[in-house]
């Protein structure tokens, strides 16, 4: 049959054509133009041609002609030539003569007329090709209208050949064309059955699909032996295109289960070629029959989605886990085969389906996200921690650590006992913050160089963890000051050179210092006593107690202890304390606070307070009324949790402004805001604050109201007004009344992770699908019984234990010897391997 041969050749050229199914407009004209004589004499037996007769180009037929011209190329592939026959004017023959014949196209095989088509049935290329092929393949493609017809055909096919049953909503559509094109290629292999009756589709058990979309079912009638049962059907999941149908039929035609006895890496089946995964069921002699059944069961489930192969482990030396029972090979190049341990066939099916789903999504997103992904991945590796980055950029610089004694587990305690005061920095040599502190610490050592009685030292907790644990170091860095015979003081100030230096200086003096005479007390308030601190600018606090105020004195002693290093405290409780209290107009118990070398001494009455309350009170008293805000002191004022009224200035603020502001600050007894100023020269980051508020730095000085703790609204004092107490107060009044519009509002945003982390879980799930399966298994329904445990679940599923014993037997030849002695002996005779007994 030469025609059939030709069709097979076509099937491949067709594929190519369909893949690039763009109508080739500019190609050489395939439409022949002939006279009736020429045409009828050129007709060859068995060769089909589509003819259209016309006298001249009638305007109505113009669009039709265009379509027929376009279809000429498509039809040529099926051996159908398209001819336009130009009728001479005087011709009155059968085809040229009648007016209505000119409204038709005629399909001839040889010189026999097969069908005439009204031109309105040939509205486009699809309909032309579909209808022409439908006519030509009248015998190959059965058209059915009733279920009985369908069943009759099915029954006659049983045991003989398979059936392709297609439903199209209408003839002449693209789907119809695709089916016909497929039938042209496969018509002799399978019986094609076509219907346009949606009812039939419902009756064949595809009721859920809507009738508006075409469907194609492959009916496995060849295997069917039972006449009473309908043939097994495999629906095609994709839309009806020539390519998809071709693919589907190829898959249906492939053997259900391929037996494999070679390295699975080398195996290739039609499934892999068509871009589908191949599932290997790993088998061996002992369980071959069961495995074969399992494989077939799985294959039926996966028909059209994946191929199934039965791999005999006895024949192939696999370097894989003994327990593995399933392998998955994907069509992607360079992806190694995955060996899995699965519990039931559902898992295999789910695995493949998930895989396909993922693939589809990936394909969809691949193009869009590829670039983005790349960018994101790269930036994840880039250090965005300023401290870590700064320290690592500084790591090659050698630190001047000569002044700082290195302590070890052995020397730690002896060093502490040798010096009056030992400052110890506990750090970890890999920890950035503590290394940053180590740098400041070297500066502290510079400042304190030559100071008697203070030893600066460090302990690397990475080298000596037991020392750090014993000293209760839970954070890096930690600084402790050890005084001989006393409890260690933990440094709790800013991690900076100045602050630490000051702390060490102040903590040299015991706190509170007991003053013996009124003169000493006076000198103490002036900052001249004790002499260690005379050269050091500091604030002094003196507690004055009468002998009767024992309780307050105890609390003060404790408070002084807590404040060690932050402020110097002294106390006087001699009999003549009254003289001192009279001078400063306080009655004991009282505190005298002396700032800047005794120029002003404030008296503060003490009531019955606990040490903690006293610490709070002293801290509050130490705050300035109209402070200059700096990076270092801001936290102290933040703790008041009040709005800030800040005067930003480029350098010092003018006397006038400062006076007015001071008046404002001292305003009410219960001050409800923190009045302060900020020197942009000293605190350049203030510029960043202003930029955040106003996008650029406004003209200075600028007075700003910020409600940091409630609402975060920022208001700017009108620059055209001068900063006076009255102006500002009236502005504040308007603010409170809600008459002013905020310049900006502070972001309420949470501090989220700056960048995503590597999603190893997802990577693992992609690489080891068992993991994903495993979780979906128990996440889905934890109480669900596994199919392998259910008594009725006879689906050829192997249970895990049998799997294990099987695997052991296959994998280790040594163990294989276990069992009956005759087997051993038998083996002995054939097996020449000397490594086995």
């Amino acid at each position, binding site marked *: 049959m030469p025609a059939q041969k030709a069709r097979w050749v076509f099937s491949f050229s067709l594929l190519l054509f369909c893949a690039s199914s763009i109508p080739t407009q500019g190609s050489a004209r395939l439409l022949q133009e002939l006279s009736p004589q020429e045409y009828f004499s050129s007709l060859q037996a068995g060769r089909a041609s589509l003819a259209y007769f016309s006298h001249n180009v009638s305007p109505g037929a113009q669009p039709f002609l265009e379509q027929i011209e376009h279809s000429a190329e498509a039809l040529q592939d099926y051996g159908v030539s398209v001819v336009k026959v130009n009728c001479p004017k005087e011709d009155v023959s059968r085809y040229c003569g009648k007016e209505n014949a000119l409204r038709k196209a005629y399909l001839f095989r040889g010189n026999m007329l097969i069908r005439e088509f009204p031109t309105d049935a040939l509205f486009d290329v699809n309909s032309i090709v579909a209808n022409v092929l439908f006519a030509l393949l009248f015998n190959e493609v059965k058209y059915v209208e009733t279920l009985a017809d369908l069943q009759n055909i099915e029954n006659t096919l049983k045991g003989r050949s398979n059936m392709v049953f297609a439903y199209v909503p209408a003839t002449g559509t693209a789907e119809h064309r695709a089916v016909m094109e497929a039938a042209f290629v496969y018509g002799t292999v399978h019986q094609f059955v076509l219907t346009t009756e949606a009812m039939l589709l419902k009756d064949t058990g595809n009721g859920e699909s809507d009738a508006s979309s075409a469907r194609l079912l492959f009916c496995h009638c060849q295997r069917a032996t039972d006449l009473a049962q309908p043939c097994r059907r495999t629906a095609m999941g994709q839309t009806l295109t020539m390519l998809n149908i071709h693919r589907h039929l190829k898959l249906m035609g492939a053997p259900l289960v391929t037996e494999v006895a070679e390295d699975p890496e080398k195996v290739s089946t039609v499934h892999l070629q068509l871009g589908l995964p191949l599932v290997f069921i790993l088998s061996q002699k002992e369980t071959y029959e069961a495995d074969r059944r399992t494989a077939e069961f799985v294959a039926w489930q996966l028909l059209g989605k994946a191929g199934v192969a039965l791999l005999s482990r006895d024949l192939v030396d696999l370097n894989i886990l003994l327990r593995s029972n399933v392998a998955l090979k994907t069509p992607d190049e360079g992806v190694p085969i995955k060996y899995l341990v699965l519990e039931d066939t559902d898992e295999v099916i789910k695995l493949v389906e998930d895989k396909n789903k993922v693939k589809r999504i990936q394909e969809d997103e691949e193009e869009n996200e590829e670039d983005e992904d790349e960018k994101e991945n790269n930036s994840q590796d880039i250090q965005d921690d*300023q401290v870590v980055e700064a320290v690592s950029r500084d790591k090659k610089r050698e630190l001047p650590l000569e002044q700082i004694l290195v302590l070890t587990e052995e020397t730690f305690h002896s060093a502490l006992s040798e010096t009056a005061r030992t400052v110890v920095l506990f750090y970890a040599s890999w920890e950035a*913050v503590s290394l940053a502190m180590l740098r400041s610490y070297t500066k502290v050592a510079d400042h304190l160089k030559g100071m008697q009685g203070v030893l600066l030292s460090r302990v690397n907790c990475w080298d000596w963890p037991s020392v750090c644990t014993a000293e209760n170091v839970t954070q890096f860095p930690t600084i402790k000051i050890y005084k001989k015979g006393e409890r260690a003081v933990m440094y709790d100030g800013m991690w900076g050179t100045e602050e630490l230096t000051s702390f060490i200086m102040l903590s040299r003096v015991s706190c509170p210092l007991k003053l013996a005479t009124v003169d000493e007390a006076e000198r103490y308030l002036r900052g001249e006593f004790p002499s260690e601190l005379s050269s050091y600018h500091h604030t002094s606090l003196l507690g004055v107690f009468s002998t009767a105020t024992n309780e307050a004195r105890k609390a003060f002693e404790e408070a002084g202890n807590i404040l060690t290093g932050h402020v110097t405290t002294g106390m006087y409780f001699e009999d003549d304390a009254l003289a001192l209290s009279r001078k400063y107009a306080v009655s004991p118990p009282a505190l005298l606070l002396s700032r800047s070398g005794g120029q002003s001494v404030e008296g503060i009455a003490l009531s019955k307070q606990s040490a903690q309350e006293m610490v709070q009170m002293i801290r509050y008293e130490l705050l300035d009324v109209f402070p200059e805000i700096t990076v270092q002191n801001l*936290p102290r004022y933040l703790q008041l949790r009040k709005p800030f009224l800040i005067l930003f200035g480029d350098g010092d603020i003018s006397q006038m402004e400062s006076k007015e502001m001071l008046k404002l600050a001292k305003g009410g007894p219960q001050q409800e805001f923190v009045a302060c100023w900020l020197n942009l020269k000293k605190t350049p980051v203030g510029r960043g604050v202003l930029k955040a508020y106003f996008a650029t730095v406004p003209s200075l000085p600028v007075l700003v109201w910020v409600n940091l703790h409630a609402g975060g609204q920022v208001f700017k004092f009108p620059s055209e007004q001068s900063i006076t107490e009255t102006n500002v107060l009236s502005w504040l009044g308007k603010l409170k009344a809600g008459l002013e519009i905020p310049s900006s509002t502070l972001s309420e945003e949470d501090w989220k992770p700056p960048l995503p982390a590597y999603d*190893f879980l997802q990577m693992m799930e992609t690489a080891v699908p068992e993991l994903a399966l495993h979780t979906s298994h128990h996440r889905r329904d934890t109480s669900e019984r596994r199919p392998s445990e259910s008594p009725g679940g006879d689906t050829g599923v192997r249970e895990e234990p049998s799997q294990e014993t099987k695997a052991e037997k296959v994998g280790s030849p040594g163990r294989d010897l276990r069992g009956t002695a*005759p087997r051993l002996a038998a083996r002995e005779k054939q097996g020449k391997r000397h490594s086995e007994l």
Partner: protein
Amino acid sequence: LGLALYAGSLRVASGAAFLYHDYCVIGAGPSGLQAAYFLQQASRDYVVFERSHAPGSFFALYPRHRKLISINKRYTGKSNGEFNLRHDWNSLLSHDRQLLFQRYSRDFFPNADAMVRYLEDFASLLKLRVQYNTAIVHVTLERDGQAWNGHYFLLTDQDRQNYKCSSLLVATGMWVPNVVNFPGSEYVEGYETVSINPEDFAGQTVLILGRGNSAFETAENILGVTNFIHMVSRSRVRLSWATHYVGDLRAINNGLLDTYQLKSLDGLLEGDLEDLAIVKDKKGKLHITLRFYLDNRNTSAGIDSITLPQDELDNFATRAPYDRVIRCLGWKFDFSIYNRSLRMMPGKGNKKKYPQIKPSYESRGTRGLFVLGTASHSVDFRKSAGGFIHGFRYTTRAVHRLLENRHHGVPWPSTVYPITQLTNSIIKRVNEASGLYQMFSVLADIILLRENATAFEYLEEYPVGVLAELEMQTGRKAPNGLFVIIMEYGRNFSGADKDVFYYNRAVGEAQHAWQSNFLHPVIYYYKRLPTEHEMRLRPPDWPLPRPDAVHHIVEDFLTDWTAPNAHILPLRRFLENCLSTDLRNFFAESCFLFAFTRQKLPPFCQQGYVRMQGLVGSEGLRRHAVEAGLLEDYTLADFLGDRPPDSREGSQDQLLRDHAIPVRPLQHLVNAKDE
């Protein structure tokens, strides 16, 4: 004081002649002494029974050739004591630095006598309460609702003296030699008694049964004087460097592998000893045959009538007769002293030499009975180091901590840290912790998050198999999610038949860390404590069920995981994304800026700067940060002329704009990728 306590604890239980103790430990080997140490430290009422006159009696005899195969690495280049324990496989845990094994031996593979001396010192210097010459011959239960576990343990020694205990710690080790019975097994010498003098083997042909370290140790000793040695066992040889399991054949003993593969007459064979038979000929030579041949034959018949395999197969491998056959098949647990009521059952499969225990080391049959030491190896047999001193010293401590919580209301020790120390605390532990390292995939550090993730609680070396019972076992609560930190080898990397030297076996890139093959830290994140059901359903070969997120710190050649970009940064990103927060460190200046421009502060500023503990940083560091683009230098703004030249007009202009312009997030800090 120790004596006084001891005397006090000897009070006789009501009426009966029972000497009562809260805790009884059977066996004064390494694990028994280790348990005693922790009980002593916690001032518990305990006693250790030892049948010998001195501790560690097993080591007085074994290994026969006296060379321990646990390493005694005296130098690591590091002074970190905890880290150094990773490479000290012989010391027990104690506070006393004198009791480090390196003070007892200078050998890398020390002599067993050093171990005996060490254990003697450990018991005596720490004044552990060990009752020597007391062999417990019977253990039974006495039901009592008042008892800790609903029953007391009644122990009887060889002199019929009875003891009563609330909790029983079995640290008897594995000392019953494994024996195989087959026709002719009477000709087999045991490892326990075989001569260790090579001279006794001169010119002999030897067959060794077994393929463990004792078999190879025996072979190694006589390799140079024998005609040849054949070694038979059921399974193929498992090399510890391929399996990453210290109990498999160690390279120090594998001389026979050399001589086998170089065809120097020695050889290895696989076969089931059960199918074997040995026949002695008239000259005293031992012939290998198959039990199968003997079964078919009248056993009373002489040697000549017995079929030898070579009669049918004339090139049969072991057709040459042997002078000696030595059995080196290892040991098993002594089940004989326990009354049936204790239900001390052997394990299944290759664990049948061990008693069945839970991952908490408590017996499956009896509450309150814990198995310690080598006998507890079923938990991690052929995986981790739980059967060896360097492993069970930690599991013993874990058991002690479980008991402290269960019976004395002392919760599992933990430290609370602010969240800013989260990355640090993990990095510190994975770099130095020895228990995590030795007992990989068995002991885990647990981080319990406090509400709002502002602080966390750190628990060390908890048995990961009982993770689901964490709250009950530790007395700590885990309502806000947890991290589990363990060490793992790459799955599918280790194995008897695996090539562990293939090219590109090590991963270097942090982003491929999950494929790391060598031991590396893995951090699992769970939003809530996994249930027992989930623990049971965990994927095969996984120590834990599927987490909500997981992080692998990429394997490191030096096992030093402190690299800022390859190790710490990806870990920080992982933690940040689990907690949905920003865990970066900031200089005080940045915190200052945030304090004025944002309503919320990152944890580092919130817990540091705001509490007056901001990191001021040195000028040089701030400059580096500016150069890296992670800190803006506002002093430069002065020179750049940030303001428009005509300030009056400009300010007018700005006034109009000021209202409309919202605060922009500080891009350079918020998002590094914009840089």
